[in-house]
């Protein structure tokens, strides 16, 4: 069985104050699908993954990963410290 693809959709959606319905409307998918993506019950197609990343204006690897994500805040601080 293929390893799961992890994503930050729930965090990004909450950060932008969007409901699942609003995000689903923007992506032209069903809001249940947004929920299952967030839960990790469904892996999106490459096309949908790109659409999601483009919607959040982030690179694909910032939204999807094969390895667990570090918290966004700690990643941000690390970047600032190294700069």
């Amino acid at each position: 069985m293929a390893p799961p693809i992890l994503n930050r959709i729930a965090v990004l959606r909450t950060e932008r104050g969007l409901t699942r319905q609003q995000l689903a409307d923007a992506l032209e998918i069903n809001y249940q699908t947004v929920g299952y993506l967030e839960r990790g019950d469904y892996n999106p197609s490459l096309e949908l993954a790109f659409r999601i990343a483009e919607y959040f204006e982030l690179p694909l690897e910032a939204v999807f990963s094969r390895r667990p994500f570090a918290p966004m805040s700690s990643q941000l601080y690390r970047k600032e410290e190294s700069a």
Partner: protein
Amino acid sequence: MIDDFDKLSVTELRLRGMTSDQILAEQKRRGMSKQQIDAAWFPKPPTYNRIRSRRFRRSLVVATYCGWLLAAVVIRLVTPAGQTFPLIPFVPLANSVALLLWFARKTYLSREVLSGDSGLDERLVQNRNHAFRRSFQVFVPAALTGWVASLVCIWVQPGIEGFNNAVLIFLGATLLGTTLPTVIWAWREPDPVDSN
């Protein structure tokens, strides 16, 4: 020109007196893309989400099939020997009513047979295709078994008794064939999430 042109559907614009040519010309004048124009003329039907919990759906599936099985047993028991089933015309009728009730729920679980891909996103299309593939895998052996069983009934019990049993098996196969895709999808779909 109508002020809120962008907010109105094509049907509403027509009701306000615009012809199809005028609507199309105005859409082009406003620089709408081909996809936007297509979406305005052929809007996707809404997809409903009243799919209830997985537990509820599974209970409904079990209750439906058990109900039909019970109906078959009752019909068999109440039919006097040497007569055709008096209830046979009512069984397809009851089946049609049950199917209409399923379709009337207008969720994506019950619309897929009628609606094609419209209103379904990629996950729903995948699930619909899986449900049809799995139903074919279940239905073919069931139908072949039923076919052999009905032949055996007619052969072992010549006359009206064998015919009655063969008819019951045929009706069972019909019920199975017409309901399996929706039932398999309803069985597998996870618990719904909140729209918020």
